[in-house]
């Protein structure tokens, strides 16, 4: 280490957003400076070089001809790569100082060390908590342990996202998770109050925390084609429909991270729907209703498979009671429902139409009319289920 010092400190914190992004992306100061240099940051300094050249300034300026040759004469009017690097390092030092605060964003607003205006604070936080969908997709559903952190090496290789960035994303997730894991109340609100991130981002984090908490299986080969967004949308649907913060849930004492236990118990009663008598009645109602919109072949197909499909739907519902089967929600959904339908050549619309009718079916069956409770549970289940299926139904 030498006694070399080259620092620049301002009274107000100003963020070079380009550099901040590169820092977040895990580029080293050297790499970032190189990127900027290629973009021509240096040249933009010496506006009107043509004029100056004419006047012979550049030649007379030429302190170091060798350097000039390398960089092109125009640059010498403005900054040199050294200056760019030193600027980059100053910014990086600032980012590193800010990082301590960004880990607990509420501190950023209270601290006096850095004088940052509110908009910039918001931007800093939001960008810091931004993640790469590809990276999070890889670690989704995994336990956020040190083992997973080691696994990031593979993630980095696979996604080509620099390891530093992967680690930041992982650490952010883990931190958010640890903070809200045991907290009462709305998951999304908890995240927002503690991390001050934008609505949209907070929602995404809530979904990720939800998935992580239930350890949903997302890495099976069969699910490979699904994107992070697919999972997050589904998780969000589950939170809004099936968790304690759902409208139907009367008892808000528990945490959002968990599914509404009462609802899950009620789901067991759905077994009734797959009993033979009811099944037939439903089948006929559904086929009746869909007759106009479905082609003949599909109707025939439906006729053959209706039982299996219904069983799959109910089994998934039933399985939500058992934590082990909850984990396989996505696998089951894809394996038992989506894939068979795809094989039969159903479109996304087909399945949606079908499921909507299935959802309404019990209302039209006399036997169920006097079981209002079952109806509400069925609807609550199906509301989310339909949307999840549609979301995951990639053709």
């Amino acid at each position, binding site marked *: *280490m030498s*006694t*070399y*010092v*080259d*620092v*620049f*400190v*301002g*009274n*107000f914190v*100003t*963020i070079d*957003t380009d550099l901040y*992004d*590169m820092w977040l992306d895990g580029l080293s100061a050297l790499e970032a400076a*190189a*990127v900027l240099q*290629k*973009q021509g*940051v240096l*040249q*933009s*300094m*010496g*506006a*009107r070089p043509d004029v100056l050249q004419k*006047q*012979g300034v550049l030649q*007379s*300026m030429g*302190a170091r001809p060798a350097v000039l040759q390398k960089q092109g004469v125009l640059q010498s009017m*403005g*900054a*040199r790569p050294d*200056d760019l690097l*030193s*600027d980059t390092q*100053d910014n990086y030092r*600032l980012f*590193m*100082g800010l990082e301590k605060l960004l880990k607990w964003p509420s*501190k950023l607003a*209270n*601290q*006096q*060390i*850095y*004088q940052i205006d509110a*908009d*910039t604070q918001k*931007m800093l936080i939001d*960008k810091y908590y*931004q993640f*790469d*969908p590809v990276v999070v997709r890889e670690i989704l559903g995994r336990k956020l342990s040190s083992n997973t952190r080691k696994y990031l090496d593979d993630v980095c290789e696979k*996604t*080509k*996202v*620099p390891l530093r960035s992967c680690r930041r994303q992982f650490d952010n997730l883990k931190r958010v998770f640890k903070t809200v894991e045991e907290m009462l109340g709305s998951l999304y609100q908890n995240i927002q109050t503690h991390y001050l991130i934008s609505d949209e981002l907070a929602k995404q984090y809530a979904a990720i925390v939800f998935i992580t908490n239930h350890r949903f299986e997302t890495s099976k080969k069969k699910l490979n084609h699904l994107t992070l967004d697919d999972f997050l949308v589904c998780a969000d649907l589950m939170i809004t429909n099936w968790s304690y913060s759902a409208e139907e849930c009367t008892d808000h004492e528990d945490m959002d991270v968990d599914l509404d236990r009462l609802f899950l118990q009620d789901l067991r009663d759905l077994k009734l729907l797959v009993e033979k008598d009811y099944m037939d009645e439903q089948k006929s109602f559904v086929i009746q209703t869909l007759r106009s919109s479905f082609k003949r072949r599909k109707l025939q197909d439906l006729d053959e498979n209706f039982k299996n499909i219904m069983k799959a739907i109910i089994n998934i519902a039933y399985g939500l009671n058992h934590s082990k089967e909850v984990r396989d929600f996505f696998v089951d959904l894809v394996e038992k429902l989506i894939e068979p339908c795809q094989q039969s050549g159903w479109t996304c619309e087909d399945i949606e139409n079908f499921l909507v009718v299935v959802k309404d079916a019990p209302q039209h069956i006399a036997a169920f009319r006097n079981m209002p409770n079952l109806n509400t549970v069925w609807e609550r289940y199906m509301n989310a289920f339909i949307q999840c299926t549609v979301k995951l139904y990639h053709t």
Partner: protein
Amino acid sequence: MPGRLKVRVVAGRELPVMDRATDLTDAFVEVKFGNEVQKTDVCKKSLNPQWNSDWFVFEVEDEVLQDEPLELRAFDHDTYSSHDVIGKVYIDLNPLLMKDGPSFISGWFPIYDTMHGIRGELNVIVKVQLFSDFNRFRQSSCGVQFFCTAEVPCGFKLQFIHGFVEELVVNDDPEYKWIDKIRTPRSSNEARQRIFSKLSGELQRKIGLKILEMGGNSVIGYIQNFDLEGESGIVVRGIGTSVTLCKIHQAPSSPVGVSPLKDSPLPEDTIAPSSPTASQNLRSSTSPMKVSMPTSLNRRSSDSDISTPPKGSSLTESSGSGGAVPTGQGSGSKSVYPKSCSQQLNIDLMEFPFFTMISFPPGFLVHIGGVVSARSVKLLDKIHNPEEPETRDAWWTEIRTEVRSHARAMGCHAVIGYTEKTSICEEVIILSGIGTAAKVNLNLDQSLTVSPYRPSLQLLNASIEHQLPSKDIGDKDRKLFVDVNLANQLSVQRITNMDICDDGDRHYNCSVCHIPYKAASAPFPVNLSQCAICKRKSLPDILFTTIDPPSEIQTYGRGAFIQARICRSKADNKGEANAKEISDNLPFMEYELHNQLMNKLKIKGMNGLFGLNIQISVGETKLVGVATATAALLAPLPIPSLPRVLGQVSSSEERTHLVDLQKKLSDKMLQNKEIYDLHVTDPSNQPSPRSLTTDESEDELDLDLSTGNKEAFVLEVDDTKDESIKSMLLDSHPPPGIQVCNTKTMPGTPASNFSFNIQMFTQVWRREVMFDQQMKEDFTEIFECLLRKLYFKLRKMTPCCLCGLTFNVEVPDEDEIQITVSGVCVGVQDRVNTSTMDISVANKSLLKPISSEGDDMMFQMEEVSEQTAGTAVTKVDGQGNRREYSLMSNTRTISGAKIQKLESHRRNISNVGSGALKPQRGVELTPLFYVPGRKIGRHLGSYNFFFIRESTSLREVGGLCGFMHNFITEVLAIVRAHVASLGGNALVAYKMTECVLLSNPNKNQSQCLINVCGDAVSLQNEGDITTAIPDQFQRKHSDSPLILIPATNAVPP
């Protein structure tokens, strides 16, 4: 007489985790003042403790209140072992002792630990109840207001100037005591911080006493310096200008009870007869001087007489002050006239007629001579008796005496813009004093301040016209001339020509530039020419000054930043031999610096320097000299002609070289003319000078002015590769859109063009520098490189002006150079002045019109420049300025594909980072005395603190760079917190006077000392009544916002 200090510790926040087991802290606070210590309860297991303590009351002498800072120390309570220190908060109580200061201090103070930096914050309320003390023999000087601002502070009016005040106190440095060997670095650092703080308090108290004795109520242009002499101790020096200020719109008040002037517009009539005859006698007896009184209205001019023995005048002062100057609290209440008399006599009676201000009320400056300086090299020895630091005092007296005699040699009776500096290397110390010799008019009574530009001014403005061409900085040279001086040639001359432009708000007065002596008796050979404005008086062809550009001097075009740099090696001697070598080198260094400045000035096509600051630093094997100034083209002075290169040529090859050089020079000069907009309007087009007074002594007109000035500036070249010319050519320009000056205002850019403060910055650079043959070039390159870095850093702020740029160069180690640069980047609104901005103007029309004015335009600037670069695609949407994010598209090396995604991902995030270009809200720090676009509502006291930071884990904090970055950031944060606690939102006249970095990277250690100072103020936005910082508690004394009326309209009370 005692005062009561009351302190309440309200709460803490974001404290560090002190107990690993619980991840919490059991915090309590010790409140220490003087030797008394009180404590809060322990707030168990909390990182955000709420103590809500009762008021801790300390009953103390006001003397102690001035000297000692309040010390709060936060601890983590430990039942079994000793309590762990979290950190400390020092609060200077002086602002509470001010007459119209804040009534309490309250706010969140960062808890600072010298080993760990900032660790959480404390919320504290402090009040002081002071019982006024009328004892004549008291030791305290509460109520004297200190301003680092080197001009009459905004909102005040200058009533009287009492002159130069200086004081120094010395102490042992705790770092060098035997006990330091056994105590921890932390306690050693804290002991130092405490002693620094205490010395600073003591110094200010002593200066305050002197001020009161002189009859003043404030000191402006206060400069405080710490000399860390190592083994021989610490010296804290303070200099300033004692004045009586009164608030505008208030009856003039002064603590000595001088009643407001019964304002007769022309007090001279009465004063002249009443002025003590003693002084006149003294003069006539000692100097064969004729005092001419051309008109009855003319005040007896206070021409200084160089042959007057300095002793005489100083004696007069010390003995006379008791009688003539009302001192003490009760005594002066009725002595209006004696008071005024003392004013008038002052300049002669002052032992050192020095003024530390750098800009002056209109009418104050009569003539500017030139730069005068003195240096001396001394060997440090142990200060045996800290109570009587005679040696240091004597050293400075020598320096000041020399400076004074130089000034007198130039026919000037005053030195303005005066500063003192030291440079220490082991046992050698260089002391220097520098200022600008001038003739001034101290009689700034109301009538004058009110209408400074009315013709009557001249009548009041009696002074001798004298002058000095500031050609010589080298004091050796000057010494030679002292003897030659026109000892008996003082003639009282009236200022005759005032060029008054009534149009606009600028009033020029060319007489300020006229020589203060008779042309025929110049102290040394000077090129004199005829004033381009009035065409009557003679003036030098160039003018060097240490002050800010006075409003009286008309300039053309824009100012330019000029710097001369030299580095000489010297033998690594010790003691006497070392001192001798340095001392032998000094005149040559001064000469070389002067030469460089001259050359650079000429090539810039300019003829005046403002804010000249010369720093000579001594290292073990090096002597470094840096002179920094802002050049301008002064209208009254002759326009510099093209330099002619002359040299001995022996071959045709050399001849072509010479021709080539000459061509380059003229090209450069032309180009400079272009860049700095130096298009001189024909002087004949100027509003014709109104000769408002009759010129009594027309002798000047007989001068043959053709002799000196027609000659072109000649550059003698020894060989065609002469560095002096090279360096002239090498000098780079700031890139388009950036202007640079080291003064507080930019010549040629009216302050109204400055829109708002963008950024105050501090840059610390240090590197090992191995000099070989081309030492000079390399050394210059270091500075050019630093400037380039600055420009690059601030590239997004254009169009802007870097003001108050200061360079501080040190030679801390054998081959190391450390440079600290600081300044403020101010947004420039009016782009008409920045001629280079035409691209943007052209482009601007292509862009959609945008609703708001200033900041948005800056935005476009940025975009335009990017477009020019042809890379980033930018777009301005209708509502304002969201810049679409589109960086690195193809350039990313790591993962191109991913970036694309990211990009879309992030596109939603509006690019708020560039918000830097809007005025930010918060606490402003600025080296200037004003904040563009905002008004200073109230002065809340000066701030001065010494920070020490040490680290034994250098690698872990990011090396030396990381360490320094954090430390400076923390220092700024603490300063801001203190300003805010006084109810302020800005610190003007901010200065980092000291930045000493010691490091031992091999041991993973380093230590840094930083001293900062400035004036806390509360700002108001233009047209905005509420202050930006909400008052948490009602501020009792809060004045109704002052409405500032330009001095010209102020109504005499």
